[in-house]
């Protein structure tokens, strides 16, 4: 009996799916809560999702961090986008689809922000490998926690393609290969923008 139980246990362990979206750094509060909001929206709990956004703002502000709308406004200024406005409008209209779009777009911009940091860091020999790794890990975590987690099952081939690009970007960051990284960064942006065109707000930068 014990042998049978052990066999079942080991078969279970051997076939357990490997966690694809393994986080590489502690999850930023904003990312974690955006994921929570998306989950609620997926379950058609729009009112709860909007309430959750309110609590995120409070939580982040008490910790001295930028809130969701402030983050969106900051990124809008940097990338000439209108995510903050869309977010506000979606909340006011209680429009779940638009709210999801705003969150996906914000995630994309947050990822882009990290990748742009890496573009600036890579030619600089004074930047420690540890620092570069943190930035790359965070960019990847934004992708993994939101896009991979949400679309991994629905569009596995596309998500896998983007994961492979991210793997190569990881390698380029480790080797400090700025040109290769830049090419991959463009590939990734194009892939995200084309594969998730229906989910993202229009006019996002590549």
């Amino acid at each position, binding site marked *: 009996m014990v042998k049978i139980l052990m066999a079942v246990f080991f078969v279970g362990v051997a076939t357990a799916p490997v966690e694809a979206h393994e986080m590489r750094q502690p999850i930023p509060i904003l990312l974690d809560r955006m994921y929570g909001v998306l989950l609620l929206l997926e379950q058609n709990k729009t009112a709860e999702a909007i309430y959750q956004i309110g609590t995120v703002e409070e939580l982040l502000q008490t910790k001295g961090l930028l809130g969701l709308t402030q983050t969106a406004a900051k990124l809008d200024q940097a990338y000439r986008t209108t995510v903050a406005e869309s977010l506000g409008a979606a909340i006011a209209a209680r429009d779940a689809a638009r709210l999801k779009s705003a969150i996906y777009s914000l995630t994309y911009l947050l990822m882009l922000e*990290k990748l742009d940091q890496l573009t600036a860091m890579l030619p600089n020999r004074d930047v420690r490998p540890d*620092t570069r790794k943190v*930035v790359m890990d965070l960019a990847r975590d934004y992708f993994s926690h939101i896009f991979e987690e949400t679309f991994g099952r629905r569009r596995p081939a596309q998500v896998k393609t983007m994961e492979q690009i991210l793997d190569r970007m990881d390698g380029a960051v480790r080797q400090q290969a700025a040109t290769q990284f830049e090419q991959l960064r463009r590939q990734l942006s194009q892939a995200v923008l084309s594969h998730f065109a229906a989910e993202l707000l229009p006019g996002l930068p590549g």
Partner: protein
Amino acid sequence: MSAGALKAPPGLGVLACLLLFGFGELSGALQGGYRQEIHQYAIARAQAHPAAHQLTGVEDIDQVILERVADRSLARVHTFHLHSHGLGLVTIILLTVLANTGFSPRTRAALSLWVSLGLLYPFGWLTLAWTLPSLGEAAAFQLAERLFFIPFGGAYLLAVGALIVLYATDLIKQRREGTPP
């Protein structure tokens, strides 16, 4: 050295070990009681030295870097806590061994002093914990290394090495003369 006539180690040496134990206990209590405050303080000090930690100005990146600095700072306090207890205990044993050897009083006193100096070595971890948020990890480690790890850690290693050699020599000599060690 026989168990029946075990001599106590020098009082000052024992006091030094007890002091190190005390500091170790204090650091443990601080860690337990004020963990959050130490964490916040380390973050605030690291924020005041952005260049040392290569802060980027991007909130979520910096948050990860600052949290890591604070965690590492706290981890060094913990290492001090562990080393101060371990080293205090080992030093009491070494001082007891020394007190019971057949070395001349001058050699015993010199070796006891030498071993006791090693008790300052764990303070390198405290230095590291304290300076890491302002200097960055590499510079803080270099400072701790220069002030504590190399002089006192090195002294301790050499003292233990010297004690082993002298003790072994004494043992061989006593064996040859047929006297009990």
